[in-house]
């Protein structure tokens, strides 16, 4: 099964991944609503990588009290069932689930052709 | 005579090597030495300037035995 993979030595912290995700999911470039959040910061004289992206581990589905989340070769959230309780976000090991307007927003790999990967300029993000 | 021809910048990818030592006739110019190894600099849009022994020179300047000829690609910057 393919998953998103991240090579930090190629990451330039441009956040184009989040812009692309939001473009196709939200209709505008708004990284705060994206289902991926990768950035780099300087802290205490070191370059830190904050790589929040879905690895399809399924912890969100296990945590969901209303069975709103299904895991196949991608994650899908049934918005009719989702109550926005945030249990999935709490359990997510990559801290990438967003709760907004009482619904959980989780990466669905764009139908197996992730837009974030297409735009990652130095190929730090791959889908393999 | 022997000269070392060095590719810099994108010319390394265009021609597939960083540097090589070549045998050229005595009195060859930079242009002749490059043409002799297949570097058709006039037609190559990425071609910039040449230096010999770390000093910029003209493409028609004469080389000498042991010279180090660098071919630079164009860079854009500021």
């Amino acid at each position, binding site marked *: 099964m393919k998953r998103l993979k991240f090579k*930090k*030595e*190629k*990451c*330039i*912290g*441009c*956040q*184009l991944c989040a*812009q*692309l995700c*939001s*473009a*196709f999911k*939200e*209709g*505008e*470039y*708004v*990284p*705060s*609503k994206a289902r991926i959040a990768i*950035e*780099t*910061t*300087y*802290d*205490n*004289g*070191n*370059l830190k990588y*904050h790589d929040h992206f879905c690895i399809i581990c399924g912890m969100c589905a296990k945590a969901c009290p209303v069975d709103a989340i299904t895991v196949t070769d991608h994650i899908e959230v049934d918005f009719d069932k989702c109550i926005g309780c945030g249990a999935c976000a709490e359990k997510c090991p990559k801290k990438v689930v967003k709760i907004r307007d009482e619904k959980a927003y989780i990466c669905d790999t764009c139908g197996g052709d992730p*837009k974030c990967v*297409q*735009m990652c*300029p*130095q190929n730090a993000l791959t889908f393999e | 005579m022997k000269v070392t021809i060095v590719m*810099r*910048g*994108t010319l390394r*990818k*265009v021609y597939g090597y960083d540097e090589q030592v070549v045998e050229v006739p005595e009195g060859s110019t930079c242009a002749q030495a490059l043409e002799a190894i297949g570097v058709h600099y006039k037609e190559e849009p*990425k071609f*910039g*300037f040449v*230096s010999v022994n*770390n*000093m*910029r*020179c003209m*493409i028609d300047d004469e080389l000498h035995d042991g010279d180090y000829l*660098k071919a*630079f*690609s*164009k*860079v*854009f*910057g*500021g």
Partner: protein
Amino acid sequence: MTQTMLGYQNKVLRIDLTKKGCSFEPLRMDFARKYVGSKGLAIRYMYEELEPGIDPLGPDNKLFLTTGPFTGTPVPCSGKLSIAAKSPATGTMNDCSVGGHVGVRVKYAGYDMIIFEGQLDKPGYVLIDNDKIRFMDAEHLWGKGSHEAEKILADQYGPEYSILSIGPAGENLNIMSCINCDYYRQAGRGGIGAVMGSKNMKAIVIRGTGGVKVNDIEGTTKRLFEILRNDVVNDDNQFIFDDGTTAFLEACNDGGILPVNNFSDTTDEKWTEYNGEVLNSYRQGKRGCGSCGLGCGNFLKIGNAICEGPEYETIAVAGPNAGNRDPEKIVKFNEVCDNMGLDTISCGDTITWAMEMTESGRHDFGIKFGEADKMIEYVEKIAKLEGVGADLALGTKKASEKFGGEDIAMQVKGLEYPQYEPRGSWGMALSYAVSDRGACHMRAYAPNEEVFAASIPPYTPEGKGQMVYNLGEFNAIKFSLCICDFWGTIDYAIMSELLTRVTGVEWTEQDMADVGRRVLNIGRAFNQREGFNRAHDTVPKKIVRDALQNGPAAGQVIPPEAFEDMLNQYYEIMGWNQDGTMPDELVKSLL
């Protein structure tokens, strides 16, 4: 009525520091239609709002933080921010360009522009969380290095916030002071840090969680996939990721334009001691700005020195131009300048001037070429106005007026020379002379043609007016679109296509050229109103008097008549009078 364009937020935030208030107003879309964004838009607003003759360090000067229509979109290399004001170093207009992520955050906060007016009554910082603006106390930050202050604020607010800050140099109103972002990115030149310091503003902390709408987002984005792969991340531009600006060092050295010992000569046989191969062997990681495709930033640690950099300018000014070949000292100089909040170019040139003054016996500033440890100590002295630092804080123009040595002060209008020797690239002398903010290489970058492309002979005035105009027009529109310098292969076709796609309004290649020309002219018009003319478009005496001894340009000196010839050519192409002033009808056509 001017057509609305997508890509813009159509909103300006105006902050009154004196009254501690703020207001929101629509963007002047008529200005945007003529000047697009970033550089051009900032200068147009400055022309409108800054009365001639104001004190750059007084309450009437304003700081303009300006984005462009591409900012916050995946147009590659579009995420920088223009920071502009009247310059305390030169008295001209000054627009800087800072990297990092602050540009996209200003746009996501909902603003095309943020204008800071007036002055705080005591040290403070402004906190902007989207549309919530607060004025915070900064007594606990004042006096601290920019890095120390940024760390305190970053720990307090978290990585969603971008922080612009000044160091002690800006607090002390040093005319060489800069504004830092993300620790290692600067709005560098012309004393922009002092403008912020004069407003008692230690920092601007900003978060933006909104978005940017463009025309046909799916179609535009799909086209951007192609442009990224074909036109940005390609062999011609990729050296910026691989090497960063260290790549320029060898070409400039061999090309005869790398300055040595305060522009006394060129070409350093020891350049391999501090070149990209050496510096990048200490690289820990890469970093770029918001929406970047290339990632020029090299984060490195060497000994006890650490910085994202050093860029070519800093390598040259703290390296061969200071008689130093120790790479660790170059990086340390970079680090201390960043933390103190000083422009490495101006601070470096002022120290190298002091070195030549001392060595030549004209005035003893207590430092000679090669004394790298002292050079680093002097940075802190300059920032804190301590001892000899108080004299050198004047910058080369005012210091040389006071102590002598005007002939070897490498500056135009009070802004120090970037690290390209004009006797090796004569067009650069013209470019420095006519640049809108004093000696700046980020206007018409002559080495592109005279050295790297070898497309025009370097040691002649012939054709240099047209060359400098073409290069200047290109950069003027490019930086008004807020496209980074390092997307070197962009052209007017791509620019106009992207602007049309993003805004939903048609822009042609001719429009790009027209905007570029207009931006060059509006900068000149601002300066003319401040009293600038041909008399101020100068070249340091050293360049027209002393011949180079070494390198491919050995024997070269620019004859004064050749310099005047280049100026004449340029003025004619611009449609200016031969005294360097602009005809009234030309000025009116810009408004």
